[in-house]
């Protein structure tokens, strides 16, 4: 038996439970507008469309249009070290996390890594392309085990979160949340619980979606009969930094406070009604009056459910609020990453208008599975 030195074990009680207040203090994105926060902000404020024609040979896709992250060559962007086996979803997530860290450094407000930093990343399926290719290899190989072992981790949903942790030394809780279109809101709720329980000092919360032929085909087959008119598929990863309000570093501006996140499932075949309840509940929990809502962003699901969602937001908050932070119309249907991009679009739009400070924002999302979520933020305009 190899002797192993016994270490002093830390069993002192955890620090006293923190308050439940969590604030968003930074964000970044890799989007169809390109790398980083500035590119996304510039594209969203300029309402610049990003549609292009995907090269059919490169993508094996039937799509006439898609919103792709331009020039996304993983090895060029992230360097050769540790990137040989990365798939696109992993590359997008790692790059978005890198952008957030680098931008924070450039702003001279670096973000601490290590054991106190959690990463909570949303997805729906993981990389459909990696999974399909791996499975195909088993069917097509001379032997059924002729699969590329080095790519097995890529078939798991947690590979983008794991790869980001390895790259940046994120040793705190590392959680992958599968939640469809609303997943970033689910991830925020999860991260808030982690912070409230003192399990991390800060959390990076985001969601990722890659474009691929596999996803495109699966998406086509999943559409309902009412989803003839759909936005082109988009891709990317948006990440937010969440910190407890009462331990915020002196020099870090708070962009928004997380007031409430309501998540529920339509159990009675009434998606619009369930969303209405969800919004009402989230507003009540936040103590926010609809008149205070400066921006309301819907999830952009195509078909009746998405139309109802947009109509509800307009009814409750008015046309201006409900259209102010446009997102999917510009960057396409980013599916799992959608709610993360909505959050980022709201922060961009708020950041460009000082009148937003002190008012509220509502982010909603519904998906085909009957999952409904509503988040309410207090926009802080960078104030404490």
């Amino acid at each position, binding site marked *: 038996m190899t002797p192993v030195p016994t270490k002093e074990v830390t069993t002192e009680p955890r620090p006293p439970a923190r308050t439940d207040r969590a604030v968003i203090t930074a964000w970044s994105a890799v989007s169809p507008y390109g790398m980083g926060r500035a590119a996304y902000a510039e594209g969203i404020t300029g309402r610049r469309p990003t549609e292009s024609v995907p090269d059919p040979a490169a993508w094996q896709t039937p799509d006439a249009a898609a919103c792709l992250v331009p020039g996304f060559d993983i090895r060029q962007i992230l360097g050769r070290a540790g990137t040989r086996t990365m798939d696109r979803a992993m590359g997008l997530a790692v790059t978005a996390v890198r952008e957030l860290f680098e931008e924070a450094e450039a702003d001279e407000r670096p973000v601490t890594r290590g054991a106190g930093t959690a990463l909570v990343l949303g997805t729906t399926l993981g990389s459909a392309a990696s999974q399909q290719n791996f499975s195909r290899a088993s069917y097509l190989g001379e032997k059924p085990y002729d699969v590329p072992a080095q790519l097995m981790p890529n078939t798991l949903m947690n590979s983008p979160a794991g790869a980001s942790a390895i790259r940046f030394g994120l040793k705190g809780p590392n959680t992958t949340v599968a939640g469809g279109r609303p997943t970033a809101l689910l991830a925020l709720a*999860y991260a808030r619980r982690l912070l409230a329980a003192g399990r991390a000092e800060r959390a990076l919360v985001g969601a990722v979606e890659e474009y691929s032929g596999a996803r495109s085909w699966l998406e086509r087959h999943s559409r309902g009969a009412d989803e003839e008119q759909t936005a082109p598929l988009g891709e990317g990863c948006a990440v937010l930094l969440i910190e407890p309000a009462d331990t915020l570093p002196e020099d870090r501006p708070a962009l928004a406070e997380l007031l409430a996140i309501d998540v529920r499932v339509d159990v009675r075949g009434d998606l619009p009604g369930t969303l209405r309840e969800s919004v009402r509940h989230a507003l009540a929990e936040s103590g926010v009056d609809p008149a205070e809502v400066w921006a309301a962003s819907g999830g952009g699901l195509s078909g009746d459910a998405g139309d109802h969602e947009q109509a509800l937001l307009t009814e409750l908050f008015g046309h201006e609020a409900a259209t102010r932070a446009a997102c999917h119309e510009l960057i396409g249907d980013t599916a799992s990453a959608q709610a993360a991009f909505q959050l980022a679009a709201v922060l961009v739009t708020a950041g460009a208008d000082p009148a937003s400070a002190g008012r509220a924002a509502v982010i909603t999302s519904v998906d085909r599975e009957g999952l409904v979520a509503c988040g309410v933020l207090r926009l802080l305009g960078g104030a404490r």
Partner: protein
Amino acid sequence: MTAQRVVLTGLGVLSSIGNGVTEFTRGLREGRCGAGEITLFDATGFRRQLAHEVKDFEPAQWIRHTPLEELGRASQFSVAATRLAVQDAGLDLEELRGRRGLVTIGTTDGEARELDQLVESELAVGMAGLDPTAVRRLPAHRLALAVVRELRLPQAVPSVLGTACAAGNYAIGDGFDAVRFGEADYALVGGSDALARRTFAGFSRLGLVASDRCRPFDAEREGLLTAEGAGVLLLETLESARARGARIYAELLGYGLNCDAHHPTAPDQESVARCMGLALADAGIKPEEVDLVSAHGTGTKTNDITETRAIRELFGDRPPRTVALKSMLGHSMGAASALGAAASAVALAHGFIPPTVNHRSTDPECGIDCVPNHAVPAPLRIVVNNGLAFGGNNASVVLGRYEEDQR
């Protein structure tokens, strides 16, 4: 925020050694091994062809309001295990519907089994020819959504955690925090995975599949056997359990999560030790108070060495007895640590240690008492249950025998 005590009052189990908590408990006591020939996919051509399958699973017995063809096997499992847990807790569904709940299911592969079948069909008919009903079964969050819809829980928040093979413990931890701090009145948490050819092929190629039986901590261990299953735990506050006179299996005392941030597949000893340390600190338990470790214990060369070293790093050279349930259950992926927690709760409630079966002689490099082959009676007080995953995701949960006085 006042923290409530959280207890476990219902267990729902599907496993290769038995379905339902009664059969599962009997299996653990007898040291049953659920290994057998693979029947769920064509294993022709694989050099080794054994796995642990759930037997006698009749989805229609559990799924009454959802068309069966809408649910993949992993979602069917999560629904069935949840129904079993609710029943076992003696809870009325009507009553649950009026309470705020959390339904969090961990999984490694989601509906990978369905995707495998789609790929097989795609190779014959092309992507354009796929069956939309089958495609719609794929989204992983269905594992929790199916539960909430089938049981009609309008106030339940569904989540699926895809933290690979530690996902069950991740889900339990999430439910623990939600109930402990009053965000939810109850939590139905655990894990579910169905046997998938893709995963089997991957582990085969990695050379991690055993030729006959999974023998954790054994000097001649060859690896793991892949498995399927589901474990769902019903968590509620002690106050709520007392008010309704519920039977309490165990108290959930705390948990720990961390990430190696080191390698996609190789575990990291120091990080695993730190994870268990975090869980004990969260639970307010000293290492010397721990009576049993339910190890991740996959039966691979690397895992068992690394994990037992981590255990000795934390507990010293006389560590608590350490068992590997995967010897009986196989490696049920995202369900594994949930089944481990269920077994830990059963062990605490009934006062016995489930054995590490298929055992011949302990690897001296492992240096633990793995309770070989036969269950032993033991008045357990504290159990630590580990889940370690690809991606360096670690999660440990601490369970205690329920005692009226606050520990």
